[in-house]
């Protein structure tokens, strides 16, 4: 008997054993279990890139395959998660919620490190031959990044060349992660997308905001999975990918394209600085991004589509149309095999 589990954003809760598919044969041979709580991390910015805070649940309109979705929880930055109850009238959308006394005014990107204590951040460091010349500078940059993330719940440091190395598994101990950075070794081919896939899978079971920050010069000469598969998995598991690179990556258009498109598709960003000593802006941006994300979750409405589901988030009301929204573009219905098992190696370490 085939069993499909829909695990989205990994805030999955079993809701119903709803069967889909019309055939009698299918009814006897398949059970599709819809288990869903989709979580979106939404960044709202103005034209200058300033984050917009103080928005309310009803300011967002979410559709999935053009089907209207109702938010179930709402959270801004590291504020408390608010459960929402739909009290809409036929012509007006509104939710009852906990304290809502903020205004929708732009805030500048300042140090918001204390505001995202719930985030889990995986750093994926390219230690292939392509990084050899800038290796120590990249290490310095990563160390700076780690120090700048005071307040983040947990950090992990992975590195990759041909193979992935789980140098420091998820820990609140910043010093341990810094040691991990200085313990990385350079050499061999680059299999970025293999490494990224495994990292996304490690992040997948985590609840709350989770992000992967990749430090790489770009080239990949050893991956077996294509970036499309990794991007889909990241989107489906609600994992944001940030790519931090240098202008060296821009000499290889395929890397630039993937970095920009993959990060965008997952709700993240790609940064290409002059060199590894010049990544401050990227660090600040990621830090602020994580601090100002709106976390909105919803239980998807009935949807016969078991493939790719497109998500669209819009702001409601004329006054808000000037702002920009960044979040993942959708997700694919996952199967259990794709998200299991959790890496015992990581646990053992």
């Amino acid at each position, binding site marked *: 008997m085939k069993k499909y589990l829909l695990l989205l954003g990994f805030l999955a809760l079993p809701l119903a054993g709803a069967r889909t598919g*019309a*055939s009698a044969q299918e009814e006897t041979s398949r059970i599709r279990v819809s288990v869903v709580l989709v979580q979106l991390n939404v960044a709202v910015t103005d034209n200058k890139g300033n984050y917009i805070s103080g928005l309310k649940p009803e300011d967002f309109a979410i559709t999935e395959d053009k089907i209207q979705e109702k938010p179930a929880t709402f959270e801004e930055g590291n504020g408390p998660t608010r459960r929402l109850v739909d009290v809409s009238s036929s012509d007006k959308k509104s939710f009852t919620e906990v304290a809502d006394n903020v205004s929708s005014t732009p805030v500048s990107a300042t140090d918001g490190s204390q505001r995202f204590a719930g985030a889990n951040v995986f750093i994926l460091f390219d230690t292939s*031959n392509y990084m050899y010349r800038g290796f120590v500078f990249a290490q310095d940059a990563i160390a700076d990044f780690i120090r700048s993330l005071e307040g983040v719940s947990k950090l992990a440091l992975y590195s990759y060349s041909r193979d992935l190395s*789980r140098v420091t598994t998820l820990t609140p101990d910043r010093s341990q992660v810094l040691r991990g950075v200085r313990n990385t070794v*350079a*050499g061999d081919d680059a*299999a970025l997308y293999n490494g990224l896939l495994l990292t996304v899978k490690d992040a997948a079971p985590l609840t709350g905001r989770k992000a992967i920050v990749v430090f790489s010069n770009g080239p990949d000469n050893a991956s077996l999975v294509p970036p499309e598969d990794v991007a889909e998995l990241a989107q489906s598991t609600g994992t944001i990918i940030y790519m931090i690179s240098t202008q060296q990556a821009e000499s290889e258009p395929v890397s630039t394209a993937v970095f920009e498109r993959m990060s965008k598709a997952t709700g993240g960003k790609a940064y290409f600085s002059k060199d590894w000593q010049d990544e401050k802006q990227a660090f600040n941006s990621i830090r602020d991004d994580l601090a100002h994300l709106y976390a909105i979750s919803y239980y998807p409405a009935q949807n016969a589509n078991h493939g790719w589901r497109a998500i669209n988030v819009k702001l409601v009301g004329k006054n808000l149309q000037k702002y920009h929204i960044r979040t993942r573009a959708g997700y694919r219905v996952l199967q259990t095999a794709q998200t299991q098992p959790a890496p015992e190696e990581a646990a053992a370490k």
Partner: protein
Amino acid sequence: MKKLSLRRSTILRRSTIVASAFFLLCSGGFLQAATSGAGAPQSSAVETIVIPGPLRSFMRMAAISQKVSPDDVVPLLARNIFMQGYQQDRQTEFLRLVDRYVQQARELQILAGSANNIHVDNCDDAGTLIQILGYRLREGCGTQKFFLETANPERAFLTIDSGFPLTDLEEALQRGTPFNYAYAPSRVPVLFHESDWITLSNGRKQSYVTLLDELINDPAVARLYWAMTKVDAETRVALQRSPGLRRLLPVAPSLDFYGSQIVIRSGHVVVPGGAWTQVTWRDLAGASPDNPSEFVPRLLAKDNGWLAAYFDVLSRISESQREHLTEKGRLKRFYEDLRGTDLEPPATHGVFRQVPDLLVLFTRLQWDPNGDPHVPGDLDAWKHILHQKTDSKIIRDWSKHNRSLDTPEQLLDAMVAFSRVVTDSGPLQIYLTMCEIDEQRAPGQRLSPATVSLLANQFPQFNNWYLVFSEFPALTDESATHFVNIADAIDKVSNESLRGNTLGAFQANIGLWQVLARQGEIPTADLNSSWQKTIDPFTRITSSTQLFDATRNSLGSLLTAAGAPPNSQPSDIISLLAGPPQNTPDGRRVHQELARRMDAVLEDQHLVSLDTLFSLSDGLDAMAQGKPAPANMLALAGELREFEMPRPIFTASEKIDWSPRVYTAHHAELQVQTDLTKVIKTPGNPAQLEAARGQLAPFLRDTLVGLNYAYYEPPGAQILHNNPLFVRSHDFTEISIVGTEQFWQTPMLLGVGTPAGGGAYLMGSLTDLPHALAMTEEDFIAPENVQALIWKELVPDLLVSATLPRWWNVTPVELHAVALYQRSGEELLTASVKDPQLRTKVAGILADRMTPRRLERIEDAMQHEDDLKAMLPRMMPADTFYLAAEFRSRYPAEAAASGPASQQLDDLVRQHPTDTSWQRLSKDFGVPHPTLARTYGREILNVKPFPFFGGYSSRLFGESWESNNLYWARLADEMGYPPVMLNRLVPELTRRMTAKIFATDLEDWPAMLRAMHETGDDLRHGKIAALPTATATALRESQPVQPDQSAPNGIKQ
């Protein structure tokens, strides 16, 4: 950005920051010979040299596994220097880094002073240290928050790469507390005296005062050093004395490749073949073996190293084979065959040692009762084979000068000569394959001359598929002929898409037949007929509809042969593939789990179920006959459309620009476009409905191919679950590479490292699929050790040894016997410490399986109880297993005397002669040897570990590692797991072992042994949570007590 290395087959990361020196200089080495004695006694007193700084740091920089013993540091350093340190006489980046590190470590050593401790009181005191390390303080001392940052990248890289505790230093400075770091120089043993090596450089422009500098700056000396470490101690001392290192220096490459089997005892070289071959060896080398100082250099130098290569091969084979090969004047004649008329290229040329096929030939050669070498078919058939058109000059020359082929000896002469031809489909490969097929057959059922001719004619095309005939000797000549004819007919299908689908479906069904036959689900008596019924339907394929029907009929025959009930669903094939029906709770649980795992692969590849495909076909067929469409047809057709292409990241033009290969996901894209709903809603004429049925053929092919993939899923697989195009992308017609038509060859892995290419996929046939999948998935295992990489050349063979076998029919008695054999072997070794006679017997048996160097170490250990105790964990399970079995065979009266396990084994063997027989255990716990023995049948071959060769022969090395399954079985027995649990345990333990391997070079057997034991310890200590702990209940339920199974035997009931 300068790309430093694209080398992909190394094991330690640091070693890859080099140019392609590996290809130019790599020899195969014999690390196991050199390193087997981690902690084992040294037979000679040794001088030491100083390595500045901590040994661990130096080993990191020198690309040496940090798990080796200090004894092995200089040999491995020497090996890495000559193999990876130079390119076109210039130092590679790797060696420059080692050199720079040594200088930096010497500076730090001075800073550490006589106390051997780097001490810094506070931030103001840290300037010199930080400067040496290549860092500086950001913000400077006294500021609230300061950090270390790179000031001198060259130095900083050395600091980081050598593992200096930079974070500790940084934190101490931040806290304002003193920093202390023990920085004592390390002393490691050196062969002979340091001065012996340094003086070798006399006469050159520059001389060096330390061995470390000498090795770094002279790869020739480094190679000689490495070569000498592989020779046993007594021989090494004799060689150093005479002819001496200086005279050996020019022949170091030959000594490195082929010298490890040279043994000097009491002033004589022990030649392969024994004393009565001494004269022949004298004639061949031009010096007497009684005069080692002349014989050895001449042997190594003679004929560009070819005589040394011959000597080496003859030394590695079993005593019985050697007897055959050295009698009747063969010794000299075969060398002349091998030598030929052209000594180029030298035997020392290139990266890897030469003539792997000679070693295979001499290892596997079969002899008829009259003492002649076996001739598959007859000599007439071989006359034809040998005179076929060839590109090989050696074969052409041989044919020109040897018109007649009148005796088996002449045929063998030819085979020896052809062993220098680098090919995988020449006459020698045909001969080896035919011999292996014959070997498995009863004397009266050997291959006929006509069949040999047919198989030989088609060998370049179908050779990889002939392994099925050696694995299943029940398949007759007629079946083999039938296969070749059908395969040939499929090749002639002109429509490329139809040909691709036919190739896939045909090969997939054969693959399923192999699985069911191997698992014993097809009765032996039905093997031949079921084979024919499985392949028959593909005799003539002209359309997709016909292909669909043929494939379905073939599968139906297969299900019937495997005992599926008449009313079973097609998808029941998964349950059959998962294994025979089980009647114990454990058995059923494991069986279900294996079925679920296969199901998961099919799900993640979005393959359409067989039930759906056949229902759709039946419905369309009914409609073609004028009946209404069945009610569920539209829903079934909808299932075909559930598969979606991944969301694109690249545009079509970007894919063309950035993905250089020809192949696209054309097959998958066609499936996405397939829509049967229209023809169901508005039925067309019968021809249109038939054509619609034909559209199901590609789906059917993919599902059947997917079943093969799923069955051989390597542990830890990711592609199978995350790239839904993987199965569909299998390129059967090889459109990926223009100009190749090797449709039936082992699959190649393509699409690696091309981000815009849609992911990796296989091109070629489904033969050798387990290995191809293992190659695909191996790099998703994350190494546990810093600096370690997955051992690309070895790991696929390890994984195949875990994924191809199943253990459904293993009895508790067998499992326990495997454990007892190993324990009994250990008891024999232990008992030999106090019994010189036993020691001689034990050493005599072990000599069959190990190099002289390793045997010497074990013999030394057998002199002292403590040494032996230290040696036991370093014995390979296959060694102790063989020791006990062979000892029982040679000395049955003494078999039970060496200890309790031996006594238990003796009792067990008497009570269960079949379950404890070598033949049975070899079949159930052996590994497949598709390269060495040309079969996927499992067997323990008992060969010495093969050295590493290049090309396809690289697999010989992995195939000669036969210890894993024996060890896992012993663990399972000790921990009370029922035998069926091996189906779960073995893949998982093998994956974990793979992650733990921390090896330095391509023949690092001890690293595998270490990883295996570490994995075993994890299991014993309950650190492997994914595996259920064994329970007595489970055992009771799964092991029905047999009347003759008694507790004293140690079987857990």
